[in-house]
């Protein structure tokens, strides 16, 4: 499947998801995501030659995820995966076989985050957990980076 066909398929899937959601939840909360998928598709078409295309796609995709997530966080997650898929095809990212575990870890992480948000009653606790986890990951990365640079700059580790 070519990259061009892949992103069109994902866009069609996004449309199908929001239409199905609108069928189950008739009303403004169901129809607005349909409009936002159209906006996302227009952004996708308009920014074909723009240098920082990813940024504009993420911005329009974020609005879609926020509005869909207001109705159901799981729907928001599915749409977020689809937006990521479109962006990945735009960036011509090919996931090799040996990177599939990393992809699974990323999917699991997003599932865990969504589950945590679904279970929490207020923002504060998941926000603290998220910031704590992100800070820990960045700290570990910084230490690894420091050790790596030290090793290659000729110093003893």
């Amino acid at each position: 499947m070519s990259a061009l066909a892949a992103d069109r398929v994902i866009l069609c899937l996004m449309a199908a998801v929001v239409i199905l959601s609108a069928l189950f939840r008739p009303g403004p909360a169901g129809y607005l995501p349909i409009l936002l998928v159209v906006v996302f598709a227009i952004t996708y078409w308009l920014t074909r030659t723009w240098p920082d295309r990813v940024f504009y796609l993420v911005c329009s995709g974020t609005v879609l995820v926020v509005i869909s997530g207001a109705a159901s966080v799981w729907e928001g997650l599915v749409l977020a995966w689809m937006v990521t898929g479109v962006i990945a095809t735009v960036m011509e990212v090919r996931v090799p076989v040996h990177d599939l575990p990393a992809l699974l870890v990323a999917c699991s992480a997003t599932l865990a985050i969504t589950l945590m948000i679904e279970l929490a009653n207020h923002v504060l606790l998941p926000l603290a957990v998220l910031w704590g986890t992100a800070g820990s990951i960045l700290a570990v990365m910084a230490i690894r980076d420091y050790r790596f640079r030290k090793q290659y700059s000729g110093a003893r580790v």
Partner: protein
Amino acid sequence: MRLKRCTQGLSLLAILLFSWAFVLDDMAVLLAAALLLCGLIGMYIHFDRRFREIVLSAGVERSLERTQVRKGATLQVVTSVTVRVPPGMEITVRENLAPQIAVQDGITSFTAGPGTGTVVQKLTYRITPVVHGEFAFPGIVLSAKDRFFATDITLSSGPFSGPSLFVQPTGLFEAGSRRITAETREIEKMGVLSGFGIRALREYYAGDDMRKIDWKQTAKHNKIFVREYTGMMNLPPFLIVDLPWRGDRVSETDFNRMVAAVAGLAEHAIKNFQYVSVLLISGPNILSFMAEEKDLERCMTTLRRWMHPVERIHHLYRMSDRSDLRAGIRAIDTILSEEPGPADARFLALLRKNYQAGQQEQRMLAFTGQFIRTIGQITADEIYVFSLGYGDTSHIRQLVRQARTMKILVHVRLPEQKEPGSWETPIGKLGADTVEAFA
């Protein structure tokens, strides 16, 4: 690690979403912000992994023309860099050069990617050590970037650094490489004629002249070292280009011919003598000075930049200096000694008085002083002055006089004379050794 513009925008968006979620206690916004944060961290980890792959795949082999040189000598360095560039990444590799050396010419960096696979690139350049002592080449600087992140690392560990270069100090009592011997100078190259200066030391090979063995270095390093002496070469011509004033009605044909003649002579000098010195003036204004320029491209760039009529800050008009006035007084004295008529004698006496008054007031021109200081920086035995010959040429006469004082031959090149006497200044008054048309 540096965030690129797109990533900065995404990070700002994530922060705004988190703030919004916190203030409004909105779970949907938190979901969007959390997924965005997750994506950013994922991209960072992915970039870091690929960056490590690049560094692990990098290999450097560096070879020097010589490992022992004298301070100020030039030697060639060849560095072969092998590196694998993953898809989506772009890398730049540049030599991390020690501050003790100056790069003369050549390529010291290259860029590859994205997705070019394994790249093998050879960097060839020439360096001149400016400080004596022993130092190793510090390694390379590797910069990598993708759409979202950019970073660089200095690779100075064992496989990337070295070899060591041993720079001998210039002898305390040595005159340096600019020693002149009968219109020749020493060059940092081997030549048929051997100079007195030592350009390099190298290990002894069977068949080398035993007289060239440097016993002090041999004793110090416990290896036999021989001296390589500098070669001798003739001096290149020094070019002076007198650019016309913007107000002159310049003949385009003549000007183009002058430009072609200057460029041709400069190119000839660089190819045959390794360098050329060019002084660009316009009347009594010094515009630019290229001292011993070795790079032909840079020389031509400078010439292209300056070769056009320019505005003059100072103008001269039939400027006589003290020696001219002295010559005038001597000529008047000779005529007066022949007892001319009373009217002529009165006139000549008045003229002599004026000349004497002028002589007392006359000071050396600032332009002449600048020219003397400029020419003092270089070694030349021939000067070529290119001029269109428009307007007053007192400044050329000043140049010629100073050059002749320094025993330098002066050749003036003017445009072709359309008809006899079309040059505004009589040739003889310029005082040059030769005056020729450049076309």
